[in-house]
């Protein structure tokens, strides 16, 4: 609160001229019919996103040239407010002439930037930032249809705040590194929750799978546990003990770390793992594991995820630990 907040302005005053122009005269609104796509030797793709009952809905038409994957015609229809219509119009324009693979890289942030009059002044007020998110979602939907895959597959990370495209991993990392303790701090540090505010907690404009409030709570709890474990570890000197352990004790020790540190992360992505065996292969301890759920088909199972599991076990169990998925 300050002088600037005391007389609230109209949200319309904060729309850029481009937004205003595109709302008044959208350049790419319209449809593509089967015959038109055929005449272009292109495949017609029609993607729907949103619903009138949610306040925002968009239909995107693409004519995609068959041998080049190039979007040779692009049109939209949109039910929504002025910024939703303007975002759809710009999004449709950005798709034009690109290949489907290139188009799917266009994000809501690109759409918003393309609507700015001046590079450093946002095109819409914070609460309207979300309108461009749908413009991005419908591209993914269209690309998914063209390629015959699920639209979610274009998103490699779990995005918590769509307006600012902040991932779950980033949030946890920033909270931990900076030892953040309030939601305001999380928004200040990451920009997550600064725009439509839906991701902060339940009850906002959109229903989300996970909210900043829960992420902060969970991460704070994790940090507390980490602290406790660290304290416990320094008193125990785990590495020496592991060498002296029986096989049952070893499995128990490994399981404990999996349960507390590894499994929660895997479950978040719909996966899991189980321990198959531990073999001594001096100077290493070889831990054979089997991936379950989403992990079993995930390509990072042999790279990123595997390294992460291994490094946690090296840290917490024994530095000679090696993890081998079977």
């Amino acid at each position: 609160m300050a002088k600037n907040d005391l007389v609230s302005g109209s949200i319309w005053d904060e729309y850029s001229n481009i937004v205003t122009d595109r709302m008044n005269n959208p350049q790419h609104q319209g449809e593509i019919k089967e015959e038109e796509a055929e005449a272009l030797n292109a495949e017609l793709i029609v993607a729907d996103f949103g619903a009138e009952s949610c306040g925002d809905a968009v239909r995107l038409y693409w004519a995609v040239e068959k041998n080049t994957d190039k979007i040779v015609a692009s049109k939209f229809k949109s039910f929504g407010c002025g910024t939703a219509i303007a975002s759809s119009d710009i999004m449709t324009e950005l798709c034009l002439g690109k290949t489907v693979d290139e188009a799917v890289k266009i994000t809501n942030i690109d759409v918003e930037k393309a609507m700015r009059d001046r590079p450093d002044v946002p095109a819409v007020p914070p609460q309207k930032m979300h309108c461009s998110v749908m413009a991005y979602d419908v591209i993914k939907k269209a690309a998914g249809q063209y390629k015959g895959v699920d639209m979610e597959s274009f998103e490699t990370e779990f995005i918590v705040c769509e307006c600012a495209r902040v991932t779950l991993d980033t949030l946890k990392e920033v909270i931990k590194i900076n030892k953040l303790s309030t939601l305001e701090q999380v928004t200040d540090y990451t920009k997550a929750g600064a725009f439509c505010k839906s991701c902060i907690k339940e009850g906002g404009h959109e229903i989300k799978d996970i909210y900043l409030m829960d992420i902060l709570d969970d991460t704070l709890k994790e940090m507390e546990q980490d602290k406790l474990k660290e304290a416990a570890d320094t008193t125990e000197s785990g590495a020496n003990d592991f060498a002296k352990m029986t096989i049952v004790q070893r499995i128990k020790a490994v399981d404990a770390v999996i349960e507390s540190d590894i499994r929660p992360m895997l479950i978040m992505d719909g996966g899991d793992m189980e321990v198959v065996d531990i073999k001594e292969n001096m100077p290493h301890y070889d831990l054979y594991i089997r991936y379950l759920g989403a992990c079993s088909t995930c390509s990072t199972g042999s790279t990123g995820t595997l390294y992460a599991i291994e490094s946690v076990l090296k840290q917490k169990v024994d530095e000679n630990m090696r993890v081998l998925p079977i």
Partner: protein
Amino acid sequence: MEVYLDNNATTKVDPKVLEEMLPFFCDIYGNPNSLHRFGAGTHPKMLEALDYLYEGIGAADEDDIVITANATEANNWVIKGAWTEYILNGDKNHIITSEVEHPAITATCKFLETQGVDVTYLKVNEEGVLDAKSVKDALREDTALVSIMWANNETGKLFPVKEIGLICKTAGVPFHSDATQAIGKVKVDVQANDVDMISFSAHKFHGPKGVGGLYIKKGVALPPYMHGGEQMGGRRAGTVDVASMVGMGKAMQMATNTMAIAYEQNHVGMLRDKLEKAILKLPDTVVIGGKENRTPNTTLISIRGVEGESMLWDLNQNGIGASTGSACASEDLEANPVMNAFGSDSELAHTGIRFSLSRFNTEEQINYAIEQIRNAVIRLRGISSSYAYTPRNHVSELEAN
């Protein structure tokens, strides 16, 4: 042409009201509480204003009408007054209201909930009103207050005040009604309807902003909300805004006399009906809450495929001011409670447009508005996905969600 059709938000000050107010800025500027001639000089017009106010709502001379800064203050006062008078001492712990009240009631009740008070928010039916019986059913031994609006701001629907008044009188529970949207549009008679308190605001009936009132029936216990002086018979401290009080009195007289109400009912109502009929001629349109039992100046219409804010946008571009309860048009992206009552996830919540007229609207203006509304609907439906072309082999997913 400019056409103002947002009179439930605020109204233009009637020039005759302004004329009454002007002497009280530079000429008759004394403090009404002063003993000298400068102070006393304010009294005749203040008394005249009270006459108009009492007559306007049918109050008895033994009752009080306290001048407040607005209806929001009056509403806060009633709710928090019931809390300090009946609840904090442990006698009672329950308030009954509806889910479609103005935030000045709802937010105040929510605050009291954080202080341990039980609040019942009565649901409205598909017409946007509640059944008086639901008040009866919700009454408890420990109910301290019932607060139900007289007319709804979005739909204009009138609530069964008389029945609720009788129920509360029988049960011996104080009954307050926020009459902000009713005064000047329908006859508001506090005695005939057995209400104990009503709130109102001058700027909704062509008076100035920043002044309102609270009617308090004789014998109703309500401790002061503002402390610090003996103004208003000790019920509200603070130097009275004389010009505003005089203005509100004049505005009340002009809005509530028999001729004025008849004009509102017939002429303003006729213009509203004309506008409404013309919009309803467009396909896929519906009056939200139905046409029965409403204030004559208001219509809330859903226009399928046209999102409320974009409709307002197009109308604004063409000189017309209206309103929408759509979440997209609000600062905080929250749909207003009336829209939520009709189902925040329904199309209605996003396609409702409210037109609220006043005695200053002309038929020429309405004709112009009709033309502009038609143009906007045609343009926006042309862009809308709700009316988009669906190719043969495409299964639409837009209505599925």
